[in-house]
């Protein structure tokens, strides 16, 4: 960064803006977490107060752990997210490599076709997807969710990754070819490690909507054994009575796994976002 941008006034202003934004963004999360530890009465009396000896109440977590099979829901969410992520990254990177590396007829058209999915939400096809899943007997399986989420994540993955793969030096790939690497090894050993920051970016952008999704689990896999955590939390929200302790506790717990995944990718992610901008 250039010296002129380091003036203290600018620095303070920038930090003030960023801190404000951080506070706004984190506030709902903060409220959820503190209230998860409070008794029902305390939640409604002083929603913004921190839990103290008097109001501390683990009833929410107890309900969550007692009720249904919360551990199973977690596992389902994890399976679906990690599975979809794996396929999105694998197939996305493969398609991106083909599009950026090989010249063939219809290259641009295929690229555009794949990018179309970024603009058209997959939920528009829900009815058809449901029919398809019913016909193939995949309703109430995690496979159905993995398939749908893979399809949902691929367009953005292909779009971002092919941009990054174009920047990988041709000479490097050619050097690999001369050294006797197969196209597969060039892809896995040379290109993938070099676009790792981009992969992390794609991973985060893909992972969060999948983890948070309520729509497809509700439609495709609402059975007890295939419920995801987001869907599982809904049992505490009733039409007339809502068990707020349990809802907040469930949501607090649901943050944890995705937070861990994010931390794994974030170091790479920051590099991915700033690559190209900062040399």
């Amino acid at each position, binding site marked *: 960064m250039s010296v002129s941008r380091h003036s203290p006034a600018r620095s303070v202003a920038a930090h003030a803006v960023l801190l404000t934004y951080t506070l706004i963004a984190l506030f709902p999360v903060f409220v959820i977490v503190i209230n998860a530890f409070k008794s029902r009465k305390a939640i409604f009396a002083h929603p913004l107060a921190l839990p103290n000896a008097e109001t501390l109440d683990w009833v929410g977590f107890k309900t969550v752990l007692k009720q249904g099979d919360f551990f199973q829901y977690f596992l389902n969410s994890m399976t679906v997210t990690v599975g979809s992520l794996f396929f999105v990254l694998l197939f996305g990177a493969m398609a991106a490599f083909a599009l950026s590396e090989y010249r063939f007829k219809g290259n641009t058209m295929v690229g555009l076709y794949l990018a179309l999915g970024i603009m058209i939400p997959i939920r528009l096809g829900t009815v058809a997807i449901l029919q398809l899943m019913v016909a193939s007997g995949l309703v109430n399986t995690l496979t159905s969710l993995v398939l749908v989420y893979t399809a949902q994540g691929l367009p953005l993955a292909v779009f971002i990754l092919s941009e990054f793969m174009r920047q990988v*030096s041709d*000479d*490097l790939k*050619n*050097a*690999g*070819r*001369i*050294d*006797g*690497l197969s196209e597969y090894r060039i892809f896995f050993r*040379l290109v993938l*490690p*070099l676009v790792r920051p981009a992969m992390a970016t794609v991973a985060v952008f893909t992972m969060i909507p999948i983890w948070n999704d309520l729509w497809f689990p509700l439609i495709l896999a609402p059975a007890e054994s295939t419920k995801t955590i987001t869907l599982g939390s809904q049992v505490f929200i009733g039409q007339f009575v809502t068990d707020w302790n349990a809802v907040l506790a469930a949501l607090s717990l649901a943050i944890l796994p995705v937070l861990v995944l994010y931390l794994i990718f974030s170091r790479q992610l920051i590099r991915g976002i700033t690559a190209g901008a900062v040399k």
Partner: protein
Amino acid sequence: MAEVTIRDLRKSYGGVQVISGLNLDIKDGEFVVLVGPSGCGKSTLLRMLAGLEEITGGDINIGAARVNNLPPSERDIAMVFQNYALYPHKTVAANMGFALKMRGMEPSAIRTKVERAGEILGLTPYLDRFPRALSGGQRQRVAMGRAIVRDPKVFLFDEPLSNLDAKLRVQMRAEIKELHQRLKTTTVYVTHDQIEAMTMADKIVVLQGGRIEQVGAPLELYDRPANVFVATFIGSPSMNLIDGVVKGGMVDVDGARLALPPGSTASEGQQVVYGVRPETFSAAAEGLAGTIAVVEPTGSETHVIVRLGAREVTAVFRDRVSFRPGDGVTLAPDASKAHLFDKATGQRIS
């Protein structure tokens, strides 16, 4: 080590022919430089030799083998790229030994070979470093090391010095040449820099528009260029070309009369181009009269740009001269070192 023969080689992209019917023989152990302006097809030719680009027609032979359809790794070649193309996540030693590892060679044998190459190139202290910790010159040396350890039949260099600064380029130029003298491996070297071509080559191939303009030893090309293109491309500052007409055994240039070069077969009345190397001009009483436009002292010599009517010529003087812009001067070319080309075809008349 092997000779390379190229027969009737053709390459087209879609309907555009970039190389048409090219023939070239490269002898065993020869250092051949492909040179030409950008877009002349020199890099395409090299990539076809390497197998990185498919050929549309013709034959390429390396040694006794016809390699047209062999993948790059089976052609027994090694290539050095312009931007080094080192594997960023491997150490210098791993970079150099990678091709051998891919062939399934023993790790201890690889280590020996890598260490020997490291010694030749002065890379021994850097073998365990990563490419990002090296300077441009060192990286290029690693790229060369990677080529050396393979003991290939042919070395291919694709503008390897273009990314280096001027001083380092001169140094690496000498190093590559020395390396070739030591290893005597057949080498094909692509550059757009005619100085590199002149200084390094056993044989220069001048390309333009996908065709070979001339093949020959550096000084042969300098002394007897086959056509106007080669005449202007080789040599710096480039050859002066002066239009004239043959009249009475002399070349008439706007009234000034210049002697024909020896052995010239130009016919009376023929429109010709009279080519004069800048250093064969001398200031004399008779010749081409003009005024001095620019004086450029380089230390060892002085470049003088002289305006002759509508045209400008460059003269190079080895001894110190005291010209000043605006002075009048009369330049006499050394007819014994002059070149004569046909105006219409651009071909040499001799």
